[in-house]
C-alpha cells in the first residue's frame, strides 16, 4: 500500500516537473509583447500621433492627415483576402518618424540644389539628430550605425547620394 502510494507520489512529482519545464520552455520562446490596434483605431489616431511627434518638420511641410497610401492599399488588400489586420501602435509612430526623416532629407536636397547653404546646414543638422530622437532609441534597430554612416557622414562631406537613395524609398 505504502509502495503504491510512493509510486503515485513520484509519478505526480514527475508530471508536475514536466509541466513546470514546459512552462519554463514556453517562457523561453515567448515573443516580445507587441501592442496592436485595429485598423479603425490606427486610421483615427494616426493624425494626432503624427502631430505629436517629438521634433518639428521643415518650414512649410505639414504632418499627414491620413496613413500613407501604400499602407491603406495594403490593408485593403489584406482585408479583401479575409485577413484580420493588426497594426502595432509603434508602427504609427514609426510612420510619423519616417515622414519627419523624409521631410528633412527632402529639405536638404532642395536647399542644396537652390544653393541655400543656411537652409542646407540646418537640414543636415536635423538629419544628424535623427539618431538622438527618443523614437530612434526605442524603435529603430541599427546596432552598427549603418544609417548614419550611409546617409549623414557622406552628406557632411558634400556627398548626398545616401540621402537621395533614402528619399527614393519615401514614395
Amino acid at each position: 500500500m505504502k509502495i503504491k502510494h510512493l509510486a503515485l507520489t513520484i509519478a505526480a512529482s514527475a508530471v508536475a516537473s514536466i509541466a513546470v519545464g514546459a512552462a519554463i520552455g514556453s517562457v523561453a520562446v515567448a515573443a516580445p509583447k507587441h501592442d496592436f490596434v485595429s485598423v479603425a483605431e490606427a486610421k483615427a489616431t494616426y493624425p494626432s500621433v503624427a502631430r505629436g511627434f517629438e521634433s518639428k518638420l521643415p518650414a512649410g511641410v505639414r504632418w499627414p492627415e491620413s496613413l500613407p497610401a501604400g499602407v491603406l492599399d495594403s490593408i485593403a488588400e489584406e482585408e479583401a483576402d479575409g485577413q484580420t489586420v493588426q497594426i502595432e501602435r509603434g508602427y504609427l509612430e514609426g510612420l510619423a518618424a519616417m515622414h519627419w526623416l523624409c521631410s528633412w532629407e527632402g529639405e536638404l536636397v532642395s536647399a542644396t540644389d537652390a544653393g541655400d547653404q543656411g537652409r542646407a546646414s540646418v537640414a543636415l543638422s536635423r538629419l544628424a539628430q535623427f539618431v538622438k530622437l527618443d523614437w530612434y532609441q526605442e524603435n529603430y534597430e541599427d546596432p552598427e550605425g549603418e544609417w548614419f554612416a550611409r546617409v549623414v557622414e557622406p552628406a557632411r562631406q558634400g556627398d548626398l547620394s545616401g540621402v537621395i537613395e533614402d528619399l527614393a524609398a519615401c514614395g
Partner: protein
Amino acid sequence: MRSKKSRVSLLAAAAIATALIATPVSAAVAADYSISGDMPYNTTQYYGTFRPHGIGSAYFRLDSFPQNFCGGAFQIALRNSAGDSSNYSTWTSVGGTRAFVWWNGGTVPSGSYAITAKNYGAGCTSHTVYWGGLLTL
C-alpha cells in the same frame, strides 16, 4: 632600387585595396536581426520597429513556426517608409524550405524597413502561434 619581393608586395597591396574599393558598402554593413511574434490565425500584423538597409539583397530565415499546425501558412514582407511593401515570401506551407530572399534575384533599395507578417489558411481559429527567425538587411 626596389627588390622583386617589395614590388610583389606593392602589387598585392594594390590588388587588396582595389578589391576593398570595389566591394559594395552594403555588403560590409549587412546586419542580422532576430525577430519574432505571436500571431492569431488569419491575421496580418504590421510591426513597429524600423531597420536600415543599404542597396543589396535582404534575407529572412524562418526558424520557428508550428509545423503543419492546422495547415497554417506564414508569410513575411518588408515595408518601406512610404508604406509600400516588397513581395511577400512564398511559403504556402511551413516545414519545407524556410529561407527567403527579397526580391527575386534583384536588390532591395536603400531605406528604412519595417516588417509585415501574415498567417492564413488555417482551421484552428482559436490558436495563437509563435513565429521567429533571422532577418538579414
